[in-house]
């Protein structure tokens, strides 16, 4: 797979296609695996994807033809394919079902890819494009996982959560990322939070929240599930402990194993001498 020669040839095709689009004055941005590579991912590139607006598709096709690359519109209706010899370039104008807009391309950043500067989709837009593509027909988490890991710090995960709230496969993928510790739970201020940090945050909330002020509750986070263990002085306090933990870790499953201390009578009958 990581054959150096085809890899290099594919990157040459990428540069050539970017040059064609650039010369034709067509707004574009690098997408897909090449963009993941540009943002720090492994150079295991199998295809070359660019995002363009649908209204630029015809002009793009002409530009590629003029550049000696054939271009055709397959029946899928959301992309244009250009061929550089045996290598293929996808010019996509509906990314994960969403139309490619000027705003999306405006959010792209100029990055250096294989010694060539070109616009690359923002990390957040890239992740959204992958998450929106997940479906019953394509539920492979391995490839997006390998893309996401190296660029997790560049992504606005709260925005990703918002934008994919109605997509079950995307939500499942986010749960996977949390369980693996790649990203923090919802509400984490950006960046990755390991389960340890999450447990620390919940413990602090239990100690400092005026509803609880509980110091002795043991909090662990395993596989995205928060376990609360320990003892409290009353039934209602067990419930409050759960409420405060839930607020500190929204969206995570809480297993409340806190029990109420049973007070036995003193063993006074044995007292004395």
């Amino acid at each position, binding site marked *: 797979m990581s054959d150096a020669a085809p890899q290099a040839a594919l990157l040459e095709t990428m540069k050539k296609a970017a040059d064609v689009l650039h010369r034709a004055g067509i707004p574009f941005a690098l997408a897909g695996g090449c963009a993941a590579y540009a943002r720090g991912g492994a150079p295991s590139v199998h295809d070359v994807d660019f995002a363009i607006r649908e209204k630029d598709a015809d002009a793009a096709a002409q530009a590629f033809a003029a550049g000696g690359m054939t271009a055709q519109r397959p029946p899928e209706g959301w992309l244009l394919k250009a061929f550089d010899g045996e290598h293929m370039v996808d010019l996509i104008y509906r990314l994960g079902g969403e139309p490619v807009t000027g705003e999306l391309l405006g959010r792209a950043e100029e990055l250096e890819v294989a010694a060539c500067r070109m616009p690359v989709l923002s990390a957040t837009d890239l992740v959204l494009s992958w998450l929106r593509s997940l479906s019953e027909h394509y539920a492979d988490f391995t490839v997006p996982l390998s893309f996401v890991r190296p660029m997790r710090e560049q992504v606005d995960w709260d925005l990703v959560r918002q934008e994919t709230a109605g997509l079950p496969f995307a939500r499942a993928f986010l749960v996977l990322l949390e369980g693996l510790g790649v990203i923090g739970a919802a509400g984490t201020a950006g960046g990755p939070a390991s389960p340890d940090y999450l447990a620390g945050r919940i413990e602090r909330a239990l100690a400092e929240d*005026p509803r609880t*002020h509980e110091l*002795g509750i043991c909090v662990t986070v395993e596989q995205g599930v928060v376990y609360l263990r320990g*003892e409290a*002085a*009353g039934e*209602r*306090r067990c419930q409050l402990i759960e409420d405060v933990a839930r607020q500190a870790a929204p969206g995570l499953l809480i297993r409340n194993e806190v029990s109420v*201390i*049973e*007070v*036995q*009578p*003193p*063993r*006074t*009958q*044995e*007292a*004395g*001498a």
Partner: protein
Amino acid sequence: MIRVAAVSDVHLGPDVTGTIRPHLAGIADHADVLLLAGDLTQHGTTDETEIVAAEFRDIGVPVVAVLGNHDYQCDSQDAITRMLQAAGITVLEGSGIVLGLPGGRLGVAGTKGFGGGFPGRCGSEFGEPEMKAFVRHSRRLADAMGTALRDLDADFRVALTHYSPVADTLAGEPPEIYPFLGSYFLAEAADSAAAELAVHGHAHAGQECGVTPGGTPVRNVALPVLRRAYAVYCLGPGGLPRASGGAESRRRSAGSSPLARTGVGEPSSGNRAFARR
């Protein structure tokens, strides 16, 4: 013989009330005094203190208390102290009291105490002002209790604290948090007065029995440790001899020290009598 009942960490509040009261009827038949080792409230409010006062007032034996860290949460410790005093409960902080009991004069000196840790793994007054303040607070509270303890004109002396004087009674707690659970300054203070007993709370997951380097028996009476309304320890002839600890305790054991350590009437046959649960 003096029978000392003790409990702590009841963490009472409007939602947790009547935990101990039903078990206090007839306590005078089994004990001469009740010690409360702090964390009487959950949030440190005066509302909760009303419930604490109702729980422990007029039980038929003197009640002597120190406050715990929970009782400080709302900065109302002074008001809480006044309310408890008004209910007939003696609240100690760097101070002591002598009770004339049928078995003799019992002196109790107390403080909330503070953390800092234990020899070999403890903080010191070094570095940042916050670190110095932390350790200094702990040392000052312990020093004040030590002075009060030594000044007691009594037959038996008990050191009453919320934080632990020793690591023994913390077994069961994560070792990483020991410096937040107690300070050896408190043990030093108790040993400086050759106290007959040191009673503390705070370490909910700890164990009941320990001993200071000087040989003073230490009892963690946190309710989650005792799992009963209170424990009773006997001081005086008929009780067990003091543990053989440091030179001080050996010196004392050689004499006719009247110290005793029996638990809630368990047969006085060694430390097993004090094992948790």
